[in-house]
Every structure is written in C-alpha cells, then in structure tokens.
C-alpha cells in the first residue's frame, strides 16, 4: 500500500547501517565508517541520527525525539512525524514510555533503563578534528592511542582560563581505549554516559557511526589537579524548583528579567504535574496551553 520503504531507507542500506552498529557495539567509542544516504531533511537536522533510528526502529517501538531537551521544536516534531509515518511507530514525549529516543544535544534527566535505546545526532564525530584536520592523521592517532595533543589542549585551557573551558562536546575515554566525542551535550550530561541503556551515535555528513554499550566505562578527560566537574547554572528551575537538572537561561521581558528552566521539558513537566513549583512557577493545570 505504501510507496516508500519501511523506515524510509531501503533494505540494503539498513543492513549496511546495522552491520556498522554491531561493530560499533563490539568496539565501544570507535568510529565505524558507513555510506551515508541522502535523507529528506537538511544535514543540520541530524541525518546521521535519523539513519541510525531508521535501522533500529520496529513497528513495536514507542519513539521520542528531543532537541536540546525539548520535544516540541520544529526539528523534533518533524523527525517524530517522519517515523510515525514511515515506520508505523507510536510516539511519546514521556522519557519513561519511550523504547527509542533520538536526541540532539542532551541526555534525558530521567535514568534510562536497559530496554531503552538513545540515538544521538552528531555533527562532528571526530574529537581530534580541531587539533588535526586530516582524517588520515586522526585515524592514525586513534590507532596508536596517541591522545597527548588532546590533553595538551585541555591543559592550555587551564593555564589560560584557570579551568577547562570546554563546556560542550567534552571528550571522554571509552573503556580505557578510544577518545570519543559525546556529541555537543553539555558536560553536565557526561556522567550520564555511564548508563543501563544502549547508546548509538550517528554522524550523517561525516559518515560515522559509533556506540557505547550499557555499563561501559566512560571517563571524561581530566587532570589530577583539575578534576572533571559536571557543572550547571547555580540555580533551581524557576518553573519546577528542580536543583538537579540542566537549566536553560531565558530573558523573559524587555527589562532583561531572567528565568532559569529545565532544558528537559518532559522532566520539568513531570515535576510540575507532581506538584513541584519553582520561584516563578504556577501550579500545573492540565488544560493550560
């Protein structure tokens, strides 16, 4: 009846991506090359993540998409609709109800379970790229475990700024072997990379897939005298009062009045539904638009 393939991609393409995913899981943190396909959306919309989702989704899945923590951006809504139509999946905004979550720039606040899969959209998969533009050279550096330059760069940060200035896409070492870019998540999310769920990373333009199996050892690079810190704004969420979530800062009126709110909209909403109210919040009303 349909005039498109299940989950949009043809079977041979999905098989190729699935083989890359299996090798990625077998070699955690290593970037597996794959032949990326054109998708009916621009690269900036996470075509790598979309292709990985297409290769793992089944009609039995409940799918969630978040963009910087929010389910309701144009990007998130488009991708959710795309798979609702092409893969016949159910969709949700509730982290706990999703079996597959595609994300751009965040890890959900709520801990993921062993039966959940997190698919990351990755713009630049190579953590050494800003140090070394040549792919041939970075591949050699990974092969030889030559990560000294990366430490030098982080240490230069410390001497210049008194602290490691990198706050997004903070590099990690996976299972004591490969240095990996966790995608542009805030470093606040880095400790959550050690999780029960399966993590898959897709970079469309750069044609790389990599993976972190559950309970894999993921360590943020740091120094004895400057240990890694998963920092966030020193505030509580003004809507739900949470003190343990990553916050976005918003200017809410012309006078420059500021407001902090959870970047994870499902987390914030769930807390408000449970009766938590922040400094500038109002009680949650089911019909409030």
């Amino acid at each position, binding site marked *: 009846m349909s005039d498109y393939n299940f989950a949009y991609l043809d079977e041979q393409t999905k098989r190729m991506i699935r083989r890359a995913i*299996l090798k990625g899981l077998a070699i955690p943190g290593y970037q597996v090359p794959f032949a990326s396909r054109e998708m009916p959306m621009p690269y900036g919309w996470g075509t790598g993540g979309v292709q990985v989702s297409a290769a793992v989704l089944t009609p039995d899945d409940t799918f969630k998409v978040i963009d910087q923590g929010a389910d309701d951006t144009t990007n998130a809504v488009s991708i959710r609709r795309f798979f609702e139509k092409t893969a016949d999946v159910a969709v949700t905004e509730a982290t706990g109800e999703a079996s597959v979550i595609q994300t751009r720039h965040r890890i959900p606040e709520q801990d993921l379970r062993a039966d959940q899969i997190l698919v990351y959209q990755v713009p630049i998969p190579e953590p050494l790229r800003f140090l070394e533009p040549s792919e041939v050279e970075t591949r050699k550096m990974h092969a030889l475990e030559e990560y000294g330059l990366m430490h030098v760069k982080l240490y230069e940060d410390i001497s210049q700024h008194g602290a490691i200035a990198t706050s997004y896409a903070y590099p990690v070492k996976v299972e004591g072997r490969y240095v990996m870019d966790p995608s542009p998540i805030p470093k606040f999310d880095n400790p959550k990379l050690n999780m029960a769920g399966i993590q898959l990373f897709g970079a469309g333009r750069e044609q790389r897939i990599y993976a972190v*199996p559950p309970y894999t050892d993921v360590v943020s690079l740091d120094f004895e005298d400057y240990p890694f810190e998963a920092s966030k704004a020193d505030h509580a969420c003004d809507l739900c009062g949470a003190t343990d979530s990553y916050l976005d800062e918003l200017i809410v009126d012309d006078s420059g009045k500021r407001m902090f709110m959870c970047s994870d909209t499902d987390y914030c909403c769930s807390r408000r539904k449970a009766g938590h109210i922040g400094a500038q919040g109002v009680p949650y009303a089911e019909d409030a638009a």
Partner: protein
Amino acid sequence: MQAKILEGGFVEAPTDSARAFRQIMTAMAQPGTINTVVGAQPPAPLSVATGVVLLTMCDPETPVFLTPKFDTDEVRAWITFHTGAPFAEANNAAFAVGAWDDLPLHDFAIGTSEYPDRSATLIVETDHLSVTGATLRGPGIKDKATLSLPDVAAFRNNALLFPLGLDFIFTCQSDLAALPRTTKVS
C-alpha cells in the same frame, strides 16, 4: 532448483528483519543475554537463529564462509537465493557459520589498527545455549553474567587482541547470544 530453496525466507522482510536486528543488537550490546528470533526456516543443518542472522545481516557485500558440515548445495542455494551473499574462504569472510570445533579461528580477519571493524563475525551453531557456565565481564554487562560457552582460552586470547578481534553470535534453534571482543571470559 528445489522448490524449498525458495521458501523459508522472511514473510515481511522489512519488519521481520527490523525485529530480528533488534534481538541481534541487544544480544551484542548485552553479552550473556539470550534472545529469541523468528521468521526464517532454513534448510538443515542451519538453525532458525542462524537463518535469521544470515537474512538480517548478509547481502552481496558480505562474503560468507561455511565449514564443511554446513557447506551443502542446499544451504548454499538457500543463502544465495535469499541474501545474494557470495561464498568465501575464511580469510575473506565477513560472516562465518559453523560448529565451534570446525571453525578455523586463526584464519579470519581480525581488523586492522586503523579499521578494527573490518573483522569477521562468527555464527557458532551450538547444541545447547543457556545462561550458565563461563563468567563474563565487560561492556554491556552490569557486574557479571554467565553463558554456556564452548571454550574459555580462545575467548580470552581474542579479548587480548582488543581493539582488534572477532565477534561471536551463538545460535541454538531459535535462540541466540553474542560475545563481542570486549568481553572478558573466565
């Protein structure tokens, strides 16, 4: 061509292979778990699970090696018809099918230091698969797991090659489990 060669493939290939892949992926991501697959009816001596893995993962881009016991006209014809995968010697194989004792472990590609993914995945047919036996530790495993493995030393040696090495899928009737190169076996 025998009529039954044409049979035993997926009925709804796109969704059957999607569901099968999720089981195979879960097995590889969580060593020590046993997952059940359906949808293939391959000719003997291939198990249902081996048939499902072949249908899901193989195509003209993946040379397949068969040990002599599995290398029959009927098996070859079934794999060719349903996947289009070419047959190869062990050293050129992306996937291999055989019983543990018959697989020439030292002949398969283990990848290169720059491309460790260019390594073979071995589908090992077993008579028995259960979550008792050797102790497994490593990525995908919370603390430890146990799995009936046909060997210990061979998997230890394979893990020492990391990030190079072979990855294994054990099949028994409709069940499968996996052992990536990262798993430490004792």
